[in-house]
């Protein structure tokens, strides 16, 4: 058979080898040409036959290369087609953040992108930073051993993250700055639908010479709108905290009703003084927000205890939230 026709049947390297052998065989077209060259009568005839033979060989080698590539590709395809894996096997989405962390991260995102830095401190704090430096005198009810969780007369589980604000004020005294703290706080409560002895708070603090109530209101509105992912309407009510004056309770209007969401105010001058601020032109605003409270409002969770039960059927509901 003509070697060109045989080329169509080449499927493997062995077939290719046989095709090459048949091309270069003595009785092949190429073999005959070589014999004719050897017996050529003139130089011109030899040259002409030589050119013919070279052309034929080049044509054949081109074809052999093409066939070799085809055989290699076929081999790869064959190998690949023999492999199999059940790529349709379903995946269980197992990882995820606790909804409290998801809310905390939203607070972090807004605060860090707006120039506040995060300060962490131990959850076991001194009476001084938890109370005294926040203008909470010895007679303050929260200092009662029954209401706060004390290890001894001077050490207790922090009752709020405002103690971190007191720490920040001391560290950066007579400076302008924005700071926040997020973490667990503790009160001597029993567990029920809306209370726990352990919960989490974000406390924010801004100190500057021109800090004002209008800055505080803008900050809370922008921050809460970001965290709750909708434009919130605020209602501010006069309140009382020893470390702020004026003090404000802030409600948001959500799903047709006002919901109490946080406490805030202008930093009490005594708190700045206790931290070491000697320049009385510095002012500040502060706010403390319960993370569980925000999570309950945002996700419409009705029982605080669900956050601590850690039932996967509860936690998986939040797996689509951005972590």
């Amino acid at each position, binding site marked *: 058979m003509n070697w060109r026709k045989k080329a169509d049947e080449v499927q493997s390297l062995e077939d290719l080898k046989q095709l090459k052998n048949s091309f270069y065989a003595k009785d092949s077209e190429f073999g005959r040409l070589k014999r004719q060259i050897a017996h050529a009568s003139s130089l011109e005839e030899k040259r002409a036959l030589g050119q013919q033979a070279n052309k034929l060989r080049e044509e054949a080698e081109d074809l052999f290369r093409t066939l070799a590539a085809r055989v290699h590709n076929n081999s790869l395809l064959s190998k690949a087609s023999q492999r199999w894996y059940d790529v349709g096997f379903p995946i269980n989405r197992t990882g995820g953040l606790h909804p409290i*962390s998801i809310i905390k991260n939203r607070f972090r995102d807004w605060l860090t992108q707006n120039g506040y*830095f995060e300060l962490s401190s131990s*959850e*076991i704090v001194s009476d001084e930073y938890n109370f005294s430096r926040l203008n909470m005198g010895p007679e303050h009810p929260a200092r009662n051993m029954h209401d706060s969780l004390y290890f001894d007369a001077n050490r207790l589980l922090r009752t709020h993250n405002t103690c971190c604000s007191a720490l920040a004020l001391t560290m950066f005294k007579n400076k302008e*700055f924005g700071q926040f703290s997020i973490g667990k706080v*503790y009160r001597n409560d029993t567990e029920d639908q809306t209370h726990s*002895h352990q919960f989490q708070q974000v406390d924010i603090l*801004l100190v500057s010479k021109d800090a004002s109530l209008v800055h505080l209101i803008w900050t809370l509105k922008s921050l809460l709108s970001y965290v709750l992912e909708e434009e919130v309407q605020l209602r501010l009510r006069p309140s009382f905290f020893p470390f702020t004056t004026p003090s404000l309770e802030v409600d948001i209007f959500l799903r047709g009703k006002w919901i109490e969401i946080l406490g805030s105010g202008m930093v009490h001058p005594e708190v700045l003084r206790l931290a070491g601020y000697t320049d009385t032109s510095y002012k500040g605003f502060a706010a403390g927000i319960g993370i569980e409270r925000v999570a309950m409002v945002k996700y419409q969770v009705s029982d605080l205890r669900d956050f601590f039960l850690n039932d996967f059927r509860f936690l998986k509901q939040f797996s689509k939230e951005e972590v």
Partner: protein
Amino acid sequence: MLLSFRELLRQTQLNENINSIVNAFNSLGFEVESVSPFVVLEGLKFGRVTKTYKNPNADNLTVCEVAFFDKVRVIQTAAKNVKEKDYVVAFVEGAKKGDTVFGVKKFKGIVSEGMLASWQELGFNSKLLPPKFQEGVAILEKADLSLDPIKYFELDDYLIEISVLTNRTEANSYFVLVEELKAFFKLHPTTSTNFSTSRLPIVFEIAAQDLESLSKKDMLFVAKHNLVAKNSKEVLMGLLALNYGAWSQLYDPKHFQTTESFEVYNAQTTLFLDGKTVLRSGSKPEPEFLPTSSTQIIRLAIFPIQKDVFRKIRDEEGEVSNTGGILSKQTGFIFLDVVEFIKARFNTAVLRVITTQAEHFNSSVEVNTNLLEQYTNVKNILTTERGQDTLGQIKRLGFKVEGEKVFPPSYRSNINSSEEFVEEFVRFFGYSNLEPEPPKITNVLVKAQSKLKAKLSALGYQEFLSFTLVRPENNTFNPLNISEAETLITQAASGRQEVRKSVFNTLVESLNHNIKRKFTRFSVFDIGLIATEKQSLFLATSLYEFQELKQQVVSLFPNKQFEFITVTESNEFLIPSLSVWIKEEGKVIGWIGSIHPFYFEHDFLFCELLLKDFKDDVTAPTSSVVYKPYSKQSLKHRSVTFELQQKESVKEYVDSLQKHAGVFQVFLKDVYENHGRKKVTLDVLLEEGFEEAFDEKYN
């Protein structure tokens, strides 16, 4: 504090609806906790019984012909106490009680055009009613038929429950709240108190044991109307302690020292003690109530006092002032709020009752206009129309403004500084009238956010949230050998008295919760405080193998040089052959492995790792990476095979190989086990140029 809406309207002489009053309280800083109607009634009428006779078809029904203002109706009743000429209250056709609408119905052959009302049906609790009022229908000696009984008896009242801020204890009284409302609505201050007088023909009775069962609504009556306290002191103390009754609050006498001053103002209502009249509106206390006992604590009788008839009382020697002997430190207990006390701003050596007429505290605060303008961002705020309005409202509260000085009313001990005056000003100016504006912020520190939780989540770990505190009997798992538990001296209401020695001691509650519900295949993490006062990362997984878990721990902390030491000693918490200690700089900072079945019997692997403390938390992140030139030549493979005992770890060999010059990475290639021994082949990747030295040592 519990308030009667109708009483507020009467005293303020306002004509506002309940929503308007609620809004005013919220704006003023007295958060309204709840509002509840006393009773939902409509269409009641006073009537006069003109004729009665028995229904011939029914033994227990009396047919009454009752004259109303509009017409005479026939109403049948089963009550036995109705007689001709009595005045009654009736639900006539179209009247409503809750969802029930009354109509005309035929009973035993005779049409009845309504129903005579009993006191209970008018909303009064039987427990408060004297026996003769508990049976039958409500009978009155006299009534004006043209009046609406609902309005007349104020049955359309609302109970308003508000929170009073801790710096405004003086606001636990109608006196102050009425003035606050009047200032809010820009009315002039009260010149004389319009005390309410009950129109009910009943003196209510209550026993101490019934207190707990009474609703707030019932207590509204107690507050508004005449009360006989059957068990005298106990009942009153109970009422006051429960904060029931708008005028009631009990102060623990031990909070009062004779070196402190108090103000007394406002008292109203009529109260009886031990069957005797203790006080009656507008009168002096009855002499019988003068203190007689000789106990050590102070007793102050409840007495009527109008705000413009204040009395000054001295008790230094049990002596009382010229206006009535009612105070002694030798007597039993203090009832306040009928007579309201606040701790005044000055300490004196006498316990005294001071009138606003008699004494003004000559204390002032500065009006800091700059501060006011800065906080509100309103230029010349005091000269604006709203600013002027606000000043007017504050003056209505009794503040005196003289130039740049403000003299708060004597009872406002919470106003001591310019900032506190700003607070008072803005309270009336209205926070909603301030225009929000973004602050300028000085960035003093840029810190990296921890990505640990996100990494763990990406690895398939679900975050759990567990309690830091644990009951002592559950604080037993202690692999890190924390010697002493952090124990609260406070008696924890939750019963959790100690800081956990391992996150496991509280996280196990959630692990078991899910396992009991058949959910057993998961990986979880939690980060929280343990008794070392450090944060601890805790991992629990039934999905990953030991080597995977170990690999994850290393990957999570790329800048740490962890050392893993097999737990070989007998350990009561961890299974030695399945666990390692994690060391850093020679110190144990955690562990990976299997917990002894005594503590947890399910097939899980765990890791606990102490995280950093917070001492260096105000530093910005730093990097120690400096670029070094590296070879771009192909790496060289070498296989190294060791023969080991069945339970012998390959760790030593790998450690040794990794320390050899030029070794880039070591992989486990193959393990062949045979007759209690195993051949382990490691695949070593070498940098070019180190082959000869390596081969000389290992091949």
